[in-house]
């Protein structure tokens, strides 16, 4: 009997398996890694534990940890892509061929950008917000706990889709933003762009839901007495960032939707024929894309605004100007998007307007830099690792900012667009800003959640490796860019004399890898030596509310909800010599729910089916999603009570020696 498999499997066939040595390596490595984890969990019988304490948990502290864990793994994958690219450019780009073909090179840089923005930077930001935001506003939870879990699992499903492309099919070779016509069916008939679309679409909807959730949390769940102008700056930056999420991500959703229609049913939004307009895609994707940059960097600003006062032992300089700067950035970031396509052909008026707006947005950012510096001025500064990351940030970020203002001048942009100068600029912002911010946050808040410090010496080693690596990796790119080296370059002529600088950049990558190695070592060593590194619940003499609760932190965050006075709420508690209250009452906490992981599976399977044109499976996925939505709406009995007595026992245990 002759079975027509394509009815069942759509485009999926044995041809989808990788055939190039590098992709086979990636696929085998990925599959082995997953198998190893599954095996380890089965062998140690941890499945039930994983399901009960992590996967179905609605506790933002656990969801935050899961976000950061996924980001960490994705950071390693993104770095693997970097190594391939820089190795190609340093060693093989002047010879006829290396192990990486031109098409593969394009997939690699597309994957690198997508992973680093969506699954590393976004993940770590959402992880931090989950961990810190409810604590800092003195709340016991976020506004919608189940929605929070669903958001995380959609992020996870998007991540999984993107990584499945390693083993089945290919990834997009159209850059991290998939400009048409390269991303249209005509030029990219394979599954790569579809993988890109669906992993972003799924993760993006998760982000959108998170945005709504955190905004409502900030608006309605603040501790009594914490007015808007008494919120910690980190909370303000999250507010700005989440406003950007809820107003920018719908644009991404719609734009990706239209690209999907172009690719699947043959509409003509962004095609070049029948009136379609590829420039509209570029316009829309950047109307989302520029706010996205600030979505990432604002919370990092918030982290530094928490760290600098604590390690300078002074209150933050210019709180009000900081708040206004954040809100100004939030609005202005919607008015600059054209600077990403100055060269597409808009007239002088349009370019000039957006060039000026771009320079204007540098002003509030400058205000923040000065605020941090004035906070340090005449402070008693202790250069612990979080503060080192801040010093690294302020230097690299300022350099990035200055080159950014250069690029804001359309005339200069015409010279250096499409060059490595640009690449160096935005890595300055995202590594120096977002990533250093995340590392600083990790070092700063780690002891709050675990009860022990990260090893200081290894932290310093990691910092210096990263900083040196960063400078070595990106300073040559500025020079190469001015010499005319374009981005996304897999071959160049040896006579250009660029190889030396590319080798320096490659060495920089090695230093960054060394930094990552020190970080992993630091984590492992600190966990091993946790008894010696143990600390109390307020190791840095903190100022904000999260340091006032016990370490480890109870599920309900705070046993009593004391009224807040003043900006540095915990600092004023300490100054007034207030004692901890013990007038406990019953607390309601959300029960665990399996909806998050189940929705992730359904959405993953549905999207996978659409990518491979298995329409029957896609239809099942759609119906299952609708049914799940109805079931979520019908949930009853979603909370359980922790009684007064249980709280008293828990509190006594948690405070232990500090009582």
């Amino acid at each position, binding site marked *: 009997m002759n079975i027509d498999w394509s009815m069942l499997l759509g485009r999926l066939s044995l041809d989808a398996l990788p055939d190039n040595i590098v992709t086979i390596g990636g696929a085998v490595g990925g599959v082995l890694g997953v198998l190893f984890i599954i095996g380890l969990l089965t062998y140690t019988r941890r499945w039930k534990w994983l399901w009960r304490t992590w996967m179905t948990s609605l506790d933002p502290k656990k969801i935050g940890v899961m976000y950061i864990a996924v980001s960490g793994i994705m950071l390693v994958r993104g770095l693997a892509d970097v190594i391939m690219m820089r190795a190609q450019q340093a060693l093989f780009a002047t010879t006829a061929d290396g192990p990486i073909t031109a098409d593969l090179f394009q997939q690699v840089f597309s994957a690198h950008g997508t992973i680093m923005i969506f699954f590393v930077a976004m993940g770590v930001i959402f992880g931090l917000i989950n961990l810190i935001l409810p604590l800092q506003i003195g709340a016991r939870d976020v*506004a*919608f706990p189940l929605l929070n879990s669903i958001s995380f699992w959609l992020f996870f499903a998007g991540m999984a889709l993107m990584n499945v492309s390693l083993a089945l099919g290919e990834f997009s070779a159209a850059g991290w933003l998939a400009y048409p016509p390269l991303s249209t069916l005509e030029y990219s008939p394979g599954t790569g762009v579809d993988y890109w679309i669906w992993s972003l679409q799924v993760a993006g909807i998760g982000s*959108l839901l998170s*945005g*709504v*959730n955190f*905004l*409502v949390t900030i*608006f*309605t*769940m603040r501790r009594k007495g914490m007015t808007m102008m008494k919120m910690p700056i980190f909370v303000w930056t999250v507010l700005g960032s989440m406003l950007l999420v*809820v*107003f*920018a*991500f*719908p*644009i991404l*959703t*719609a*734009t990706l*939707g*239209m690209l999907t*229609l172009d690719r699947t*049913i*043959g*509409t*003509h*939004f962004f*095609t070049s*024929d*029948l*009136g*379609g*307009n590829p420039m*509209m895609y570029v316009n*829309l994707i950047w*109307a989302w894309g520029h706010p996205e940059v600030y979505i990432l960097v604002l919370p990092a600003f918030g982290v530094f605004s928490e760290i600098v006062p604590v390690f300078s032992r002074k209150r933050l300089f210019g709180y009000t100007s900081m708040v206004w700067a954040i809100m100004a950035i939030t609005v202005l970031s919607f008015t600059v998007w054209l600077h990403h396509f100055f060269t597409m052909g808009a007239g002088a008026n349009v370019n000039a307007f957006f060039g000026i707006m771009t320079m204007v947005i540098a002003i509030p950012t400058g205000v923040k830099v000065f605020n941090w510096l004035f906070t340090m001025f005449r402070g008693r500064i202790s250069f612990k690792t979080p503060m080192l990351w801040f010093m690294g940030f302020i230097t690299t970020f300022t350099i990035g900012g200055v080159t950014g203002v250069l690029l804001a001048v359309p005339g200069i942009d015409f010279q250096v667009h499409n060059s490595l100068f640009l690449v160096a600029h935005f890595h300055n912002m995202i590594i120096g800003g977002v990533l250093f911010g995340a590392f600083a946050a990790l070092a700063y808040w780690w002891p709050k959640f675990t009860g022990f410090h990260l090893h200081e010496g290894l932290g310093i080693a990691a910092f210096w490796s990263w900083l040196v690596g960063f400078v070595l990796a990106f300073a040559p790119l500025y020079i190469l860019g001015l010499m005319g080296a374009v981005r996304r370059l897999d071959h160049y002529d040896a006579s250009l004399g660029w190889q030396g600088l590319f080798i320096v950049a490659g060495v920089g990558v090695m230093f960054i890898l060394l930094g990552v190695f020190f970080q992993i070592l630091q984590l492992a060593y600190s966990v091993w030596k946790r008894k010696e590194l143990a600390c109390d619940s307020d190791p840095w003499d903190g100022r904000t509310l999260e340091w006032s609760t016990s370490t480890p932190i109870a599920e309900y965050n705070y046993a009593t909800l004391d009224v807040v006075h003043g900006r540095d709420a915990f600092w004023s508690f300490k100054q007034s010599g207030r004692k901890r209250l013990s007038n406990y009452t019953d607390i309601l906490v959300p029960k665990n729910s399996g909806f998050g992981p189940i929705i992730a599976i359904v959405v993953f399977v549905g999207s996978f089916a659409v990518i491979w044109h298995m329409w029957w499976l896609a239809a099942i996925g759609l119906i299952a999603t*609708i049914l799940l939505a*109805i079931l979520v*709406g*019908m949930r*009853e009995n979603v909370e359980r009570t922790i009684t007064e007595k249980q709280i008293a026992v828990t509190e006594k245990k948690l405070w232990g020696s500090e009582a």
Partner: protein
Amino acid sequence: MNNESVTENKSLLSRTSVGFWLYLMTDCLLFATLFATFAVLRDATAGGPAGRDIYEMPLVLAETLILLTSSFTCGLALIGLATKNKRQVLYGLLATFVLGAAFLFIEVSEFVKLIGEGHGPQASAFLSAFFALVGMHGLHVFVGLLWLSVLALTIWRRGITDKLTRQLTLFGLFWHFLDLIWIFVFTVVYLMGIVK
């Protein structure tokens, strides 16, 4: 019900309604993107028909009036909710459902007719944008009808509980919001489309 849980229910109501309102704001931007695309592509007819050649204006007016009336009947159901009048709620929802379904029926039959005449979304950029914008609104109406049916059935069986009150209030917001979006579809796509 003691005092504590009354306040708890009230704060939950305000939390969910603020959250849902924010979701509606995000939806506004989703539609704004499609409106912007439509505005940019509306003259890109690639030699095919323009809006004024294919719109059936009397039917569009009928759609508008039907949706407007359904928004009103939805309001009647919400008033019934405030007075805990189960009959009024159910009849209001029934009327809303029938009118919403009629709206959707007219829209879909228009689409089918256009596609049958060869003016489907693949024919030109203008038609792609037209189908996407109007279709996205239709999709929202469809989701609204599904939601409405689930709510109405649950109310019919279990009566008006706190939770259903919350959800129905949100549904009311959603339905009025769709009406509002349609006013702009009606104006920008259809009315402005036939202005020469």
